[in-house]
């Protein structure tokens, strides 16, 4: 039986060989330096580096240190990490797939039936975990009409081409020569692009264009409703279950379950506005309010608890202890182990 540690590219692997092979993996990139692993470790083998220093300044080391002489590879850190930065595998199988291990109950899903692919969630997601792709119908499918140029009347002045908002008119310009004294050889209207707005007709000095929109006189019933298709995908590895997508969605398509419940308090008196929490928070809970007019007094810091997962990174990072994160509930799957139950419950304040 032997325990070894390998650090590669700030990622850590601790391995114990024996009756079974236990491997603990740490992915530095996913870590928010929240300190929960350090808090739950039953043998004090984990030390999390100062959160602000790790996030705000260039550091060559991993965000956490694991003392392989103390680590017993029990897996508690891996089960409590809300960012899945830690994972314990026993004989190649993640303990997150093993029933006997308690796991944080956390999820984020977007209901395809409700999603209209507006991309608000994609824009708001603090972890860029959401990818929305959509396919819009062809513009021509949403309009119908007729347009024609009387080429005998057309003088190829190009005003219609210049004015067309849909870039649907194209003049084949040419330099007039003695044998062909014309400024253009042809005028082409792309009916796939034309929206039958009538601007060309109105600008034409020669009344060479006839145009009729069929929607305006007959109403909308003849036109099929626009069919937008697409997909909204949440990358589970990047998602931190903050709830931004759920709160910003105009259609209530996302459902987010958070791993912790609690209370976040911030003392504006003590706060010096150093911005560390703003930068540290993986959920964009904090922002600096901007005054709308000069001289207006705004709070130093704004927080919206709807996005908070109570990981504690902000509290750990605040240099003046102006932030307090209280956890009132840890959501986890049931376990028969008293020790594990106690460990999970101990994270409540």
């Amino acid at each position: 039986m032997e325990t070894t540690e390998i650090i590669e590219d700030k990622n850590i692997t601790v391995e114990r060989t024996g009756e079974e092979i236990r491997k603990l993996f740490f992915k530095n990139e996913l870590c928010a330096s929240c300190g929960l692993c350090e808090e739950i470790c039953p043998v004090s083998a984990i030390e999390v580096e100062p959160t602000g220093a790790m996030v705000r300044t260039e550091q060559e080391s991993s965000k956490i240190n694991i003392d392989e002489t103390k680590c017993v590879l029990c897996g508690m850190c891996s089960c409590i990490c809300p960012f899945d930065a830690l994972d314990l595998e026993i004989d190649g199988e993640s303990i997150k797939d093993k029933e006997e291990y308690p796991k944080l109950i956390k999820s984020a899903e977007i209901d395809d039936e409700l999603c209209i692919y507006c991309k608000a969630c994609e824009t708001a997601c603090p972890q860029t975990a959401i990818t929305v792709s959509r396919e819009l119908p062809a513009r021509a499918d949403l309009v119908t009409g007729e347009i024609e140029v009387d080429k005998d009347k057309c003088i190829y002045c190009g005003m219609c081409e210049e004015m067309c908002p849909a870039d649907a008119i194209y003049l084949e310009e040419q330099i007039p020569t003695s044998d062909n004294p014309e400024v253009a050889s042809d005028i082409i209207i792309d009916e796939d692009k034309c929206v039958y707005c009538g601007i060309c007709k109105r600008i034409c000095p020669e009344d060479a264009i006839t145009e009729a929109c069929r929607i305006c006189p007959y109403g909308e019933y003849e036109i099929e409703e626009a069919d937008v298709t697409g997909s909204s995908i949440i990358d589970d590895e990047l998602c931190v279950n903050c709830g931004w997508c759920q709160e910003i969605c105009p259609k209530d398509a996302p459902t987010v379950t958070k791993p912790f419940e609690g209370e976040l308090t911030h003392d504006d008196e003590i706060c010096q506005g150093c911005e560390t929490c703003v930068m540290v928070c993986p959920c964009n809970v904090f922002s600096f309010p901007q005054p709308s007019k000069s001289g207006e007094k705004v709070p130093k810091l704004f927080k919206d608890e709807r996005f908070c997962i109570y990981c504690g990174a902000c509290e750990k990072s605040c240099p003046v202890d102006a932030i307090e994160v209280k956890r009132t509930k840890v959501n986890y799957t049931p376990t028969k182990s008293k020790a594990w139950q106690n460990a999970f419950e101990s994270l409540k304040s």
Partner: protein
Amino acid sequence: MYINIGIISVINTHGDSMPRHIVSGLKYIAAVNLRKKGHTQKKIAEILDMDRSTVSHYLNGRNVSWTSIEIAEVITNFCPKDFMILTYALLKDREQTRNIIKTCSARRYEAFIKDSCIGCALCVDNCLMNAITLDNLRSHIDPEWCFGCRICETECPTDSIEIKEVD
């Protein structure tokens, strides 16, 4: 791990073949004990990984050195941890060590696992007797195989194991 220094010096005075002699002494004691428990010679040969004729010789008091048996007897009376470590060092085989120890030790132990057990399986890896298994993130020690070496007890990171000798 701690090994009784005295016995090593005794062994060393007998040269390279000494370990083999002691093993035969241990196997002799094991064979006799197994016979007392009513096992057939065939079964004994199987358990101790010996051929049947050797078992038969042993049981009839032939082909064994009485000095070896004396030394072996001293070893079986070591504290369980030393007995185990030395036997394992001599046999270099886990399965055989388990069988020899089980048949040569009369003492019985019972283990109590506290609620504080986190199921890290360090004890499972440490137990030379393969007496420990995990069930629902909690260790279970099979009294049938626990031999009281207490390595699990001392190494447990959460002090969750208590081993008691049963009268």
